[in-house]
């Protein structure tokens, strides 16, 4: 893909909206589109001199290569604004997981005076009960952190049809912990709206 081609894609233009509040839930159908949207969101912050944190369970070098296909990384490399942070792929213990997330937030707190943008998610696998519980706990930590610090967090989640009331309830709790929804359909334009509208 030509460097920067995705930044011109009108499908993702809504991500440049400056009216978003600070805790965004991005729901996507296609993982590749979700990735491009995350990079665009971080790039908008980098251009303003904000620190950008990309959490991933994949190899950071591989992710850096993928990001470099979308934005001009050299611009930000020298300034040390982009941080690709490796997170464990499988998290089973809630106390360990939340401690790790707190540590990441502490580093942000000490280095990102100008503001920051973070995209994860910190808990990737939410197909188990413990995964769902941890994800919500991490989101609550984010809300608390955002209430005291200048910055925003974009939390991606794939669109999966809820199979039962428990899953529906979990999804509604996710909406409650976020301020805005970024909806990226497989086809057509992406859209953002108030998370209240989903409740």
């Amino acid at each position, binding site marked *: 893909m030509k460097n920067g081609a995705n930044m011109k894609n009108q499908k993702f233009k809504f991500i440049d909206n400056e009216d978003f509040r600070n805790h965004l839930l991005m*729901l996507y*159908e296609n993982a590749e589109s979700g990735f491009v949207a995350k990079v665009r969101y971080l790039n908008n912050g980098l251009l303003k001199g904000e620190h950008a944190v990309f959490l991933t369970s994949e190899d950071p070098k591989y992710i850096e290569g993928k990001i470099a296909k979308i934005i001009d990384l050299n611009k930000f490399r020298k300034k040390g604004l982009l941080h690709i942070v490796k997170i464990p792929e499988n998290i089973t213990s809630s106390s360990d997981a939340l401690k790790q997330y707190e540590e990441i937030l502490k580093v942000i707190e000490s280095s990102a005076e100008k503001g920051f943008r973070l995209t994860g998610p910190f808990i990737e696998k939410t197909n188990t009960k413990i995964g769902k519980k941890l994800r919500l706990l991490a989101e609550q930590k984010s809300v608390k952190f955002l209430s005291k610090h200048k910055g925003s967090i974009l939390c991606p989640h794939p*669109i*999966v*049809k*809820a*199979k039962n009331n428990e*899953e*529906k309830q979990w*999804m*509604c709790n996710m909406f409650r912990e976020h301020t805005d*929804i970024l*909806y990226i*359909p497989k086809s057509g334009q992406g*859209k953002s*709206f*108030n998370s*209240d*509208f*989903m*409740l």
Partner: protein
Amino acid sequence: MEIDKRISRRSKRSKWEIYHDILTAIINENTYGEVRVTRIQFQSNLSYDNLTKHLKDVEKKQMINRTPLSVTQKGFQFLKDSRSVKELAQKLGLDQV
């Protein structure tokens, strides 16, 4: 047969469709002056009890003002976004809660 289909469709309206119908009815009625709850009830095709319940919901969500009955800026924004909201709710399996 056609009538049966329409009745069945109406009974399966999601809450987002109901909110949409109520807000649209309030806007329509506002153009004629005073908004009467009975007119909103008629236009949104709801029983009085159901309308009262949904009006409370949209008021709590700050989509309407009660005195006088009118749609807020957030309500107008909801109408603008309702198609995407409904589409996403369907994809997440939340439309028939």
